[in-house]
């Protein structure tokens, strides 16, 4: 019978390297690299996903993306998500600072803020459909505060994106918060004591000790929110399906491809998204290298 231990270590080495890397590499090539190559190839065609033949259309798909409102509308809506990420960052920063110091029930607050990031995406969508319903939770809370004529949160195209961004902020805030608490806790505590002896107040401590120490994580979050804001899919898709002016670029990619079978067009949209994300990541990498 064949036994690995009968081989010399030199031969074993070759066997084990080959044996242990073949499956991961096959999966990597099949589900990461072939899709990327295919995506670039089909982005220049009018393939419908079924027919064995297709035509090369040059840059037509790309021109359409940037000239037809139906397609570039998603980018306009990403501005809402981008701005929302700053609101999220500010709130997370505030609570992270508070929770990094002596607070009664610190773990309770941490847990409550973080829990939404653990919830199933469809559940989050339904929770907020319920939350924004006419005469639902939000309207009831507002009526206690004397606002009796609230807008239609998910029907009014001027407001719908703000509502959806609100749901996203609710979902991802705690995740941001935990990252920041981690960064702040890496500051040695005698630094605060020394500062206090020198007469620094809370604002000074925040401005000159905490903020510099978490600059890196804040920078990463801001940069990532650029790529994050072009790609929202789950929450808006589950809640509105992209209707009433809440379409995002990824929702449009999915409908174009899988609903209208425009695989060529869908591939071109995916290429655009891909290039944006790669660009943002490269910026992030160089930025972080400089920081170090």
């Amino acid at each position, binding site marked *: 019978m064949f036994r690995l231990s009968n081989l010399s270590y030199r031969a074993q080495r070759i066997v084990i390297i080959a044996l242990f890397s073949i499956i991961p590499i096959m999966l990597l090539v099949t589900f990461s690299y072939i899709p990327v190559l295919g995506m670039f190839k089909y982005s220049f065609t009018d393939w419908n996903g079924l027919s064995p033949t297709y035509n090369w259309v040059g840059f037509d798909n790309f021109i359409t993306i940037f000239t037809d409102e139906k397609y570039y509308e998603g980018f306009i809506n990403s501005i809402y998500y981008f701005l929302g990420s700053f609101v999220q960052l500010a709130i997370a920063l505030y609570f992270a600072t508070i929770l990094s110091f002596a607070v009664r029930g610190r773990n309770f*607050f941490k847990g409550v803020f973080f829990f939404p990031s653990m919830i199933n995406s469809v559940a989050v969508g339904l929770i907020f459909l319920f939350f924004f319903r006419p005469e*639902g939770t939000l309207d009831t809370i507002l009526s206690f505060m004397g606002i009796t004529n609230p807008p239609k949160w998910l029907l009014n195209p001027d407001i719908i994106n703000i509502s959806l961004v609100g749901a996203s902020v609710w979902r991802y805030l705690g995740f941001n918060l935990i990252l920041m608490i981690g960064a702040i806790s890496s500051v040695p505590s005698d630094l605060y004591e020394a500062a206090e002896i020198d007469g620094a107040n809370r604002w000074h401590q925040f401005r000159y000790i905490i903020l510099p120490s978490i600059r890196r994580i804040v920078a990463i979050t801001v940069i990532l929110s650029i790529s994050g804001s072009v790609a929202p899919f789950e929450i808006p898709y589950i809640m509105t399906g992209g209707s009433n002016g809440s379409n995002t670029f990824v929702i449009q990619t999915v409908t174009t491809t899988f609903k209208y079978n425009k695989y060529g067009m869908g591939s071109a949209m995916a290429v655009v998204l891909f290039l944006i994300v790669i660009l943002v990541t490269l910026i992030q990498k160089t930025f972080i290298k400089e920081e170090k």
Partner: protein
Amino acid sequence: MHKLKYGSLTTLKYLTLIIGVFGALAPLVVVLFASFKDTMEYHNTSALTPPMHWLNFDNYVTAFTKGQMLTGFKNTLIIMVVAILGNIFIGTMIAYVLQRFRFRGRGAIMAAFLFAALIPGVTTQVITFQIVHWLGLFNSMGAAIVLYMGTDIIGIYVFIQFMDNISSQLDESAMIDGASYFTIFTKIIFPLLTPAIVTMTIIKGIGIYNDFYIPFLYMPDPSLRTISTSLFAFKGPFGSHWETICAAVMIIIAPTAILFVALQKYIYSGFTQGAVK
């Protein structure tokens, strides 16, 4: 004066924390309230009114049976177990090879995994869809399993980082006893990786449990619904029965809540490890 200033700051601090907690919990608590109300009560009370009967589980029974949530839980569990097992084996194996051996092509493999991590998954679905079709996995659990198994690169880094701290003297002394590389991996390295494996299992498990995109796209058959797609299906037929939908939402959240309370510390560190990389 000094005391007064810090005193009011403390009040402000707790006040904002309470507002924060209200913001985080209100959307959930109202769903919990509604899930215990019967149709009449739901329509006649405000969203913020607690239910009259806290033990009225009728909506839960309706949601669970009519929404076929048992199928959803069963499918999700199968996918989760198989995909995580596969993911752990594949991840630890390639990490072992990359961390313990220096060979030609090692750098290229590392770079290939690194670059693949940059490819946004959503963008390549158009072609991945074709590949899944071509492999004959469309509308089968195999599609989700194979996609969850292969796409994860963060795991490899977590394993490599962890293995950096496992002394190679252990390997060498085993080699003196004549152990093969395979034995070293299975008997020494793999067991010592347990903490990293636990972390990856939690992160992966939560990711799979919460994912909507892959089952929605690759397993449209109603008998293959996962918890995400079975919950999504409530949107249609139960459209106006919010009390049932709310019960369904609570059924999905309950396991997450239990897990979170039990494993809070692991979850924080696991999530941050995965994100900062």
